[in-house]
């Protein structure tokens, strides 16, 4: 119950943040504008709509996490409101979990609004409803959950600005993690090779959640991939949240 109360409050706070509305409006305008581009695309209008819609979902989702999620915990520490919350019978791990769930709710709302708009645009083009697009959107949401947990982790011990930078760095590296293994195989030093292999396993593999290349060409995402990527994303998220709770429980607010 305490977790849900914190989550509700975080969700309300996110909705009050004008940045979220700016992100939603901007992404919707971008999505609808692909209809204008369609006649110029020589028959590839639907592909472009799907591409822009799904890319915008991922891009604006990560932007929302960086703008709002990076300061999720640190803002409470900065404003000293954390002392009021923790003086009540609220465990520190409950606070972390509540913050994460609240941000996840806000992202779910963003994803739902954008996916519904994308389906409406596709329907107007005579190519909807498109189930594989919804599946790709769901995988993007799982990716956003992973990134939110990382933002919460950094926010639990560093400033808002630094959390934003670290979260973005993880997003970038997360899309190169498979290259790291290729890079490791080419290295001479065994120590450097092991470091690269360690990073490959520790960093999130965000390309697992990227099924856009399949669905924009009318393909479907295999169920095994959906299940495996979702399970990986949830396990990774839970692992990072446990780590965040451990770090946060050791934090001294004096």
């Amino acid at each position: 119950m305490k977790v849900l109360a914190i989550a509700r409050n975080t969700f309300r706070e996110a909705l009050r943040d004008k940045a979220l509305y700016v992100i939603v409006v901007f992404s919707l305008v971008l999505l609808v504008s692909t209809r204008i581009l369609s006649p110029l695309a020589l028959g590839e209008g639907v592909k472009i709509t799907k591409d822009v819609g799904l890319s915008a979902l991922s891009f604006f989702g990560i932007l929302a996490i960086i703008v709002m999620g990076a300061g999720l915990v640190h803002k409470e520490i900065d404003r000293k409101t954390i002392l009021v919350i923790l003086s009540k019978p609220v465990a520190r791990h409950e606070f972390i979990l509540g913050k994460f769930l609240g941000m996840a709710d806000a992202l779910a709302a963003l994803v739902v609004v954008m996916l519904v708009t994308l389906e409406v645009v596709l329907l107007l083009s005579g190519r909807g409803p498109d189930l594989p697009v919804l599946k790709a959107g769901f995988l993007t949401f799982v990716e956003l959950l992973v990134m939110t947990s990382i933002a919460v982790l950094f926010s639990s011990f560093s400033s808002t600005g630094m959390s934003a930078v670290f979260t973005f760095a993880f997003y970038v590296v997360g899309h190169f993690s498979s290259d790291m293994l290729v890079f490791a195989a080419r290295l001479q030093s065994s120590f450097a090779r092991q470091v690269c292999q360690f990073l490959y396993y520790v960093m999130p593999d965000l390309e697992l959640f990227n099924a856009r290349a399949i669905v924009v060409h009318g393909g479907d995402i295999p169920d095994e991939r959906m299940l495996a990527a979702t399970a990986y994303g949830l396990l990774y998220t839970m692992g990072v949240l446990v780590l965040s709770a451990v770090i946060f429980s050791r934090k001294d607010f004096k």
Partner: protein
Amino acid sequence: MMGLLRGRGVRQAACLLVAASLFTGGVCLRRHVFGDPVPPGGQELMYFPSGKFLKQSALGHTTTLADVAWLRAIQYYGHHRLTDRKYDMVGHIFDVITTLDPNFIHAYVFGAVVLSQDAGRPDDGLALLRKGMRANPDNWLLAFETGFIYYVILHDYDSAGRYFALSSRLPGAPDMTSRFAAFVHERAGHSETALELWSEIARATDNKFIKEMAEEKMEKLRAQLRKERDTPPPPEQG
């Protein structure tokens, strides 16, 4: 109170007017000094980054970047089609698109037709289609287009027949692929088969440039066929 509000409203309107004047002044200055951007012939895509570089820096948004490059390629082609008909950078831009999105079948097809037909570089067109077939070995359209270029442009009927036959065996291939394979093997009259091929291309495409190009070709082939029919056969000797 009303006076204060009215005064504030006038001040805000004046500020907006000043902002609009400054903006207009800036735009006029830019146009006067730099002029409107006019793409210099053939140079505009010279600094377009390579597909491999873009793929690495796209952070998973490769297919969206391929769309941006596709729109750029259409602009480039449309501009040069109306002006100098020089297509120096067309191979580069279609290589970028297909590196970013290896399953973008229409990019291979359009790129190959433009390279072979308009740019006069059928070998580059065939190389692009081969790249497509390596990435999409089950796609019948790429094999069919390869046969089409061999037949219509290179007049290499053996290779054309081989690719039409390959296309007819691939999943989802329409009946016309085996029909063309049979035509080529029977060595039917070149102009009739070419006309059939172009009309099939015009019928199947959503791409207005390919449609226009096909209709232009069909018109020429029809005229050639009429001429062939009107010409009396040479008198038999002996």
